[in-house]
C-alpha cells in the first residue's frame, strides 16, 4: 500500500506499507524520523506523541493509512532550523531531560498545551501531561520546564 502524507510541511510518500502498520512505524522506519519514540505500543506512555491534523495523538495507535492526506507534525518539526523551540529550550534549561526517551513526546504534549492555554495552572499542566510517562525525572523538572516556557512565551 502507498501512503502519502504531509510531514513537517513536506509531502512524503512511502510504498509497500503493510496495512496494519502504525503511523509511528511509518515515521521511524520508512521516513527516517526517529524523534517519536517506540516504547509501549499501546498508548500508555505517550513517548510517540505527534500532531495529526493539529491534534496530539499517540502515533502507535494511528494506522499508517489513516494518515493518508493528513498533516503530521513530529518533534523534528517544532524547531525553526537550528534554533530550538522555546519549549525545547526550557526542557534543557530546567533539567527536564535525563535519559531523553520520553522527552520528544513530552515536548509535543507541552507544546500543544501552551498553544491552547498560554498560562496554564499546575493542575492544567498535570492533566495535559497525564498521558506521558517519565521514569527518570520524577516529573518536577518537567513541570518546571513547562512553567518556564509559559513565562517566556508570555514575556514575548
Amino acid at each position, binding site marked *: 500500500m502507498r501512503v502519502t502524507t504531509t510531514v513537517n510541511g513536506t509531502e512524503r510518500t512511502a510504498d509497500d506499507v503493510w496495512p496494519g502498520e*502504525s503511523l509511528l512505524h511509518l515515521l521511524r522506519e520508512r521516513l527516517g524520523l526517529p524523534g517519536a519514540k517506540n516504547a509501549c505500543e499501546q498508548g500508555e506512555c505517550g513517548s510517540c506523541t505527534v500532531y495529526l491534523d493539529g491534534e496530539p495523538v*499517540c502515533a502507535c*495507535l494511528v*494506522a499508517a*493509512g489513516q494518515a493518508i492526506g493528513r498533516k503530521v507534525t513530529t518533534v523534528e518539526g517544532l524547531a525553526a532550523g537550528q534554533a530550538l523551540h522555546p519549549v525545547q529550550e526550557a526542557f534543557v534549561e530546567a533539567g527536564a531531560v535525563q535519559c531523553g526517551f520520553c522527552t520528544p513526546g513530552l515536548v509535543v504534549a507541552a507544546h500543544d498545551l501552551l498553544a491552547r492555554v498560554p498560562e496554564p495552572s499546575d493542575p492544567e499542566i498535570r492533566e495535559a501531561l497525564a*498521558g506521558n510517562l517519565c521514569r527518570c525525572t520524577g516529573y518536577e523538572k518537567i513541570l518546571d520546564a513547562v512553567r518556564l516556557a509559559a513565562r517566556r512565551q508570555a514575556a514575548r
Partner: protein
Amino acid sequence: MDFLQPSSWDDALAVRAERPDALPIAGGTDVMVELNFDRRRPGALLDLTRIPELREWSVADEVVRLGAGVPYARVITELGNRLPGLAMAARTVGSPQIRVRGTVGGNLGSASPAGDAHPPLLAAGAEVEVASAARGTRRIPVAEFFTGVKRNALEPDELIAAVHVRTARGPQQFCKVGTRNAMVISVSAFALALHPDRQAVGTGIGSAAPTPRRAAEAEEFLAGELDWATRGPLPEGLARAFGERVAAAAAPIDDVRGTAAYRRHSLTVLARRAVTWAWDDLRRAA
C-alpha cells in the same frame, strides 16, 4: 491484509457486507494495540475515519444522536450539558492523546466490560443505532447490546452508526476506581442517572460482570424510596441500602486489576456516593 477506506456511509456498509473478515477501526485505541502485539490479524482494516456523517451529532425531540465517530474530547467540550454522565465518563478515559482519538462507537464495538462509556449509556437508557446494506437501520437498547465479554449484538454485516441518548432531565454521576486518575482501566465503575420527570432511576455497572449491566432491582428500589415530591434530605440508610443492592447486581471475578470481593465492596461505596451527590444536586436545583 487490505486497508479499506470508504469515504461515505453507504460505501462503508457495502464494504462491510462484502468483507466480513474486515475489522472496523475508528480511533484505533483498541484495534492498533491488538495489531501491534500480534493478537489479531484480520483480513482487512475497515477505516471509518473518512466518513463525515460519523463525526456529527444532532438533537431531535431532546434526544441526542451521537455519531459513532465523535471522539471523547468532543463529548466533553460539546455535550457536557446535555449528556453529563457520558461526559464525566469521557473525562476519565485514558489521556488527552487517547480522548482526542477514541470514540463512543469504538467503545461499543470493542464491548469491553470495562468500557467507560457503557455505564452512563446504560443509566441513561441509550439505544445503539446499527445498520447494514441489506436490512437498513435498527436500534438496539444498550442493555441488550452487550452479549458477552467483548461481544456485542452486531451482525457480521453491520456497523455502528450512532448512539441515541435522551438529554438529561436530572443529575447524573459517574465514578470509577483505578490506581491513578489518568490512563486507567477501571477496577470497577458505576453510573447513576436520576429522572425526576418520571420519578425513575437509571444505573450502569462497569468492570464487575462479564458485560456492563444495569442494577435493575436497585433502580426500582431507589425510585420507590426517594422523596421525589418534597426532595428532603437523603437518609443515610437509604444510600447504603442502594449501594448494597447495586453490589448485589454485579457478578465480578478476581483478576489482575482487583478481586471480586473488592469490586463488590467498591460498588457499594461508589453507588452510595453517587446517589448522595446526585440527590444533593437535585435538591440544589429545586
